[in-house]
C-alpha cells in the first residue's frame, strides 16, 4: 500500500489533477484486470484453441492441430448426444419448476405477517448451503432401503419400495425436486425485490377502478416484474446449463449415464480415465455454444416484448 502510494504520489506532481487521477486509477485497477485475464479470460481462449488440437495429457509428445476432428468424433458419439439432450431437458424443467415455486414463495413472503423474518431466514437456507453437500444429503434421504423418503412413506402406509435413484425417469425426477428445493429461494428473493419496488398507489388506483385481485395480478404485478423475471430466467438458465455439483453429488450421472449432462461429460472426458484434453475442450466449446444460443433467445424475447410494451 505504502509503496503504491509513494510511486503514485511521485508521479502525480508534475501532471495535472486529471492525469494523476487516471494514472492512479490505472494502478489500482491493474492487479484486478491482470488476474482476471490470467484466471478467467486465458483459460477460455485456451479451451477454444485446444478444441482444435489432438491433446491427450498422458501423451504429451503427440500434440498437434487436428482441425475439426474432435468435433467430428463428438457428433458421432452417442454419449455426447445423451449428455446434450439431458442438459437441455434438465435446464428447461428445473428452471420452470424453480420459477413457479419461487414465484409463489415470493408472493407469500411479500406479505406482512408475524414471523416473516423467520420464513425469510428459512428461505435463505437451501440457497446458502454448499450444493454438493445438499446433493449428498438428498442422496442419503433418497436411499431406497434406509432413506428418509421411503421410510416416511412406509410409516404413512404408502408404497415404499421406490428405487429413487435407480431408474432414469425416477432419478431425473429426484434430481429436479432437489434442484427446485435448492434454488427456488433465490428466485423468490429476486422477485421479492421486484415486488417491493411496485408503487402501492398503482394497486390503490386499481382498487378504485374495481379491478379484482386476479386482474390486478395480470395487469399490474406481472408487467412490473418483467425485468426481474427476465433476469431470474437468464441467470437460472445459464447456471442450470453449467450444473455440475448437484448431479455429481446426487446421481454421479447415473444410472448408466442417464443423468449425465454436458459439464459431467466434460469432466469425465478431461479428467476421467480418458484425460483427453482436446476432446474435453471440444465438448466445452459445444456447451459455450448452447449457452450462447439460450442467451440470444432470451435477448430476442426481451427485445420483442419491450417493443410491444
Amino acid at each position, binding site marked *: *500500500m505504502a509503496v503504491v502510494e509513494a510511486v*503514485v504520489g511521485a508521479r502525480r506532481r508534475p501532471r495535472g489533477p486529471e492525469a494523476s487521477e*487516471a494514472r*492512479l*486509477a*490505472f494502478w489500482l*485497477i491493474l*492487479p*484486478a484486470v491482470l*488476474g*482476471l485475464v490470467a*484466471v*478467467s*479470460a*486465458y*483459460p477460455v481462449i485456451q479451451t477454444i484453441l*485446444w478444441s482444435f488440437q489432438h491433446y491427450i495429457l498422458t501423451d504429451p509428445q503427440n500434440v498437434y492441430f487436428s482441425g475439426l476432428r474432435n468435433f467430428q468424433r463428438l457428433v458421432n458419439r452417442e454419449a455426447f448426444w445423451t449428455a446434450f439432450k439431458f442438459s437441455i431437458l434438465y435446464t428447461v424443467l428445473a428452471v420452470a419448476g424453480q420459477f413457479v415455486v419461487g414465484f409463489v*414463495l415470493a408472493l*407469500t*413472503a*411479500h*406479505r*406482512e*405477517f408475524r414471523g416473516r423474518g423467520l*420464513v425469510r*431466514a428459512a428461505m*435463505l437456507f437451501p440457497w*446458502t*448451503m454448499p450444493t*454438493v*453437500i445438499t446433493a449428498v*444429503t*438428498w442422496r*442419503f*434421504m433418497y436411499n431406497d432401503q*434406509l432413506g428418509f423418503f421411503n421410510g416416511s412413506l412406509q410409516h404413512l402406509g404408502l408404497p415404499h419400495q421406490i428405487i429413487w435413484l435407480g431408474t432414469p425417469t425416477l432419478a431425473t425426477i429426484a434430481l429436479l425436486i432437489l434442484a427446485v428445493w435448492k434454488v427456488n429461494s433465490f428466485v423468490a*428473493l*429476486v422477485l*421479492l*425485490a*421486484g*415486488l417491493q*419496488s411496485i408503487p*402501492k398507489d398503482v394497486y390503490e388506483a386499481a382498487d378504485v377502478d374495481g379491478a379484482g*385481485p*386476479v386482474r*390486478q*395480478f395480470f395487469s399490474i404485478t406481472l408487467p412490473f416484474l418483467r425485468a426481474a423475471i427476465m433476469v*431470474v430466467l437468464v441467470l437460472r438458465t*445459464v447456471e442450470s446449463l*453449467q450444473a455440475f*455439483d448437484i448431479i*455429481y*453429488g446426487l446421481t454421479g450421472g447415473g444410472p448408466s449415464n442417464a443423468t449425465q449432462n454436458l*459439464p459431467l461429460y*466434460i469432466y469425465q472426458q478431461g*479428467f476421467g480415465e480418458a484425460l483427453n*484434453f482436446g476432446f*474435453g475442450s471440444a465438448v466445452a466449446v459445444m456447451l*459455450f455454444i448452447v449457452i450462447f444460443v439460450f442467451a440470444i433467445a432470451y435477448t430476442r424475447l426481451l427485445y420483442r416484448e419491450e417493443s410491444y410494451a
Partner: protein
Amino acid sequence: MREETLRPPLAAGRVRGRTAAGLRPGRVGGRTAFYLMAIVFAVFSLFPMAWILLSSFMPLADLTAQPLVYLPHPPTLDNYRFALQQAPFARYYLNSTVCSLSATFACLVLAGLAGYAIARLRFRGKQYVLVGILMASFFPPITQLIPLYNVMNKFALLNTYWALIIPYTFHTLPMAIWLLSAYLRDIPRDLEEAAMVDGTSRLGAFWRVIVPISAPGFITAGIIVFVYDWNEFLFALTFEPNAAMRTIPVGIALYQGQFTYPWGTISAATALAVVPLVLIILIFQRRLITGLTAGAVK
C-alpha cells in the same frame, strides 16, 4: 443513509404497506391458508438439514433401523468424535478455512482498490473496464477447468492451497467489484476532500476515511465471497487430488467409510460444515439478501 441506497427495495418492505395482488389478507379462511403456505415453505426449506442434524446424533443401530426412526435414542456424539478423530474431517475443515479466508481477504483488497477507482476516479475507458469485468464473471468455470488444471500443474501448484486461493480470489472478484463500487459511489466526496485538504494523500484518505466508512459494504461483499469460496466444489475436486488437501465439500462428497452407509459420519461432518453458514444467515440475513439480489436487480 447509504444503507438505503445500496439495499434493494427489499428493505422498503419493512414499511407497512399494501400486499401483492391475489394474496390479500382477506377473510379468516384466506389468512389460515396463507399461514399454512408460509409454514409449508419454511418446513420444506429446513427439513433436510433437520434430518441431517437428527441423524448426526444417531447411533448406527438407529441409522440402519427398519422401519425408519426419527429421533436418536439414545443421542450420541460418537459420529462427531469419529468424523473429527478417525475420519479426516478436522483436516478438511482447516483446508476450507485457510482457502476461504485467504481468498476472501485477497478478493476484498483487490476489489476495494479497483472498486474505488471505478467509483471515484475519472479516467477514460471506464465503461470498457466495467464491461470486461462483468464479462469475466459470465465465463462458465467448467469451460476453464482444463487449462487452469494445466497451469496449476506446470507451476507445481496442484495440492497446495494456492491452487484454490488464486482462482477463488479472481472468480469472486467481478461480483465484489460490482458490489463495492456501487457502495463507494454513494460516499460523500466532501469527507475525502476534507482529509486531503489536511494533507493526506488520496490513497491515505482512501485507507483512513473511505474504508472505515464503507465497512458495511466490505462486510456484505465479504460474506457473499466467503460463502462462494466455502461452498466451491469443482476446482477443489480437480486441483487437490491429494486426499489430505480436500476441502469440506469434496471431503464429504468423496468420503468412503468403513460401513456400507457411513451416513452417521457424513451427517456429523455436514452439520459441522454448515455451522459457519448458519451463523452467517442468522447474523447477516439482510446483508446476504442484499448481496445476492443486488447483482441481479441492477
